[in-house]
């Protein structure tokens, strides 16, 4: 206890220096927490946008479907399987789909398109598809009409309530053909989706492809996206190996790659920030060692064991670093909360790009507690590692040399 008291008093021996060190750590923690929080927030938002846009967080297919996405790799819709999936605590919604390709024709032209049979209500809960209807109406459960992307409609020269013809290959090589009125026009930010998307109600799609009761996928929404892998494992275990359960990360590895690359550059920035903190701390430690060399020599001469002296110096460093970290974290909480509540908005070209893709042009902050703990812990560990310098000096300390003026 007396050692702690002495460490505390020593810490305030040079108030200005300690205050400057604590301030350096304080601002470094705030900066690193806020930058990490913004970075994670942007990625979370990107994932949320991409996932809610089309894929969902998790999809269930017939085993092997993802490698060969053809209608012969469909599976029968099953209430029992749906119940097993919905029994997983983290699953909030499930939407069945039947997806394949077809040729869409108008009177004058024919274009390839991606036909997706959906349960309109369930689909809307997961991907918010109804919001993208810019003309006409959204589908109902047994609709026999279609929703088409704005680009596709324009390339076919068709308008709302016009009729298009779909031709393709159905289940097990059957010929698929049908005539459908356009009930709504959809607008997607992604040019690919805009130029190729066509949505039918699930029964209409199953009838078109001669794949009655068949599905290509279940799209799953999660309550807590952070437990993605655990939830996918739970689903996998519940429904068995007949099905393949894939997370969005497995389905879209390019997004993960993009995030990794982006995080890499952020790590470099944070590395520079940490280096600045290190210089601040090491400067303080060097000054302290020079100022107190005589006193340390005297303490060892009087009978203070070096290990005790090392404990004392460690306590001083830890107290200083912890104070900076705690104050930094305390100050960064309201800042991060404010940025979460009132995210930074993009303007100009960047905003336009985001809006075109149907994303809100914002720079949100993540409130993940781990960010605060991780950044605090990193600075603390750095402080402790740097404290090794005075420790090494104490091990080498010769009281006679130290007390020579």
């Amino acid at each position, binding site marked *: 206890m*007396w050692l702690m008291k*002495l460490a505390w*008093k*020593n810490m*305030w*021996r040079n108030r200005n220096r300690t205050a400057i060190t604590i301030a350096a750590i304080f601002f470094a923690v705030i900066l690193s927490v806020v930058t990490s929080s913004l970075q994670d927030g942007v990625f979370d938002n990107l994932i949320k946008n991409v996932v809610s846009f089309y894929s969902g967080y998790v999809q269930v297919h017939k085993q092997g479907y993802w490698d060969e996405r053809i209608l012969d790799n469909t599976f029968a819709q099953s209430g029992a399987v749906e119940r097993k999936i919905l029994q997983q605590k983290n699953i909030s919604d499930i939407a069945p789909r039947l997806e394949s390709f077809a040729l869409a024709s108008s009177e004058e032209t024919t274009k390839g398109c991606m036909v997706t049979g959906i349960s309109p209500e369930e689909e809307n809960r997961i991907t918010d598809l109804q919001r993208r209807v810019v003309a006409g109406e959204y589908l109902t459960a047994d609709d026999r009409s279609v929703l088409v992307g704005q680009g596709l409609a324009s390339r076919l020269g068709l308008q709302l309530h016009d009729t298009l013809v779909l031709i393709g290959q159905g289940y097990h090589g059957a010929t698929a053909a049908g005539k459908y009125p356009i009930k709504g026009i959809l607008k997607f930010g992604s040019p690919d989706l805009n130029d190729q998307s066509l949505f039918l109600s699930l029964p209409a799609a199953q009838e078109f492809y001669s794949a009655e009761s068949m599905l290509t996928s279940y799209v799953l929404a999660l309550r807590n996206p952070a437990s993605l892998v655990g939830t996918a494992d739970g689903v996998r275990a519940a429904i068995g190996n007949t099905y393949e359960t894939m997370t969005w990360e497995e389905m879209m590895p390019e997004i993960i790659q993009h995030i990794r690359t982006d995080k890499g550059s952020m790590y470099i920035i944070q590395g520079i920030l940490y280096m600045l903190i290190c210089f601040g701390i090491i400067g303080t430690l060097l000054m302290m060692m020079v100022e107190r060399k*005589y*006193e340390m020599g*005297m303490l*060892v*001469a*009087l*009978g*203070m*064991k*070096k290990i*005790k002296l090392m404990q004392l110096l460690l306590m001083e460093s830890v107290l200083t670093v912890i104070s900076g970290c705690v104050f930094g974290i305390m100050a960064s909480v309201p800042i991060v909360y404010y940025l979460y509540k009132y995210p930074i908005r993009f303007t100009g070209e960047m905003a336009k790009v985001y809006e075109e893709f149907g994303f809100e042009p914002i720079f949100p902050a993540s409130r993940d507690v781990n960010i605060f703990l991780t950044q605090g812990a990193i600075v603390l560990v750095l402080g402790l590692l740097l404290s090794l310098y005075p420790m090494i000096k104490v091990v080498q300390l010769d*009281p*006679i040399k130290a*007390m020579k*003026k």
Partner: protein
Amino acid sequence: MKTVIDAHNISKTFNPETIPVLAVDKVHLHLERGEFTALVGPSGSGKTTLLNLIGGLDKPDTGNILINGVDITLLSANALIDFRLHNIGFVFQSFNLIPVLTAKENVELIMQLQHSKRASIEKRVRALFQEIGLEDKMQTRPAQLSGGQQQRVAVARALAPKPQFVLADEPTANLDSKSAANLLDIMAKLNQEENITFIFSTHDARVIERARRVITLVDGQIHADTAHVETNVAHEGFSTNK
């Protein structure tokens, strides 16, 4: 009389590889409990080196130093620190009190290193402050004390662990005459009343005058060893370098 320090044939050379400086040359020294001894000599005569050697701060190249029968030249670095804590008190020229602690806390620190009980620390520290006449300054920080007062606190700190002897390196060098006299009075009183052994390294005539034994060092060798007050002649009981 009980032997406190018994040094045989101790030598110490600095920079043996480059320009060797023989700081202490085959010194024999025998001190008994209750002595009040001054080590004197010109600068570079080896006073501080000899003090460091018998204080266990440095090791001799040759010879043995027995403190209360323990050969401290054989102790490991850690054991030596522990030995110093329990057996040797130090008073330095520039006081060296810890500035962030009060006078009382400075004295307590050594006893806390010894893991003494709170009650005994309290009792001992109070008694020591009474002895040095600074009871009213116990809660004062060193910066608020005069040089003489700081050195008195340093003496109390040296005595706190009840050492076998106190080594004082130029204790009066930074003090005015009045403070020096006052400090010497306190140390002489403690020496006479409590039989505490004091060994000074000094140039100060005021200290030499009060010492009962004066050992003069020249070129690392004991040049003279005199029982100063009582007889002022060579003290035959004390060995010198041969």
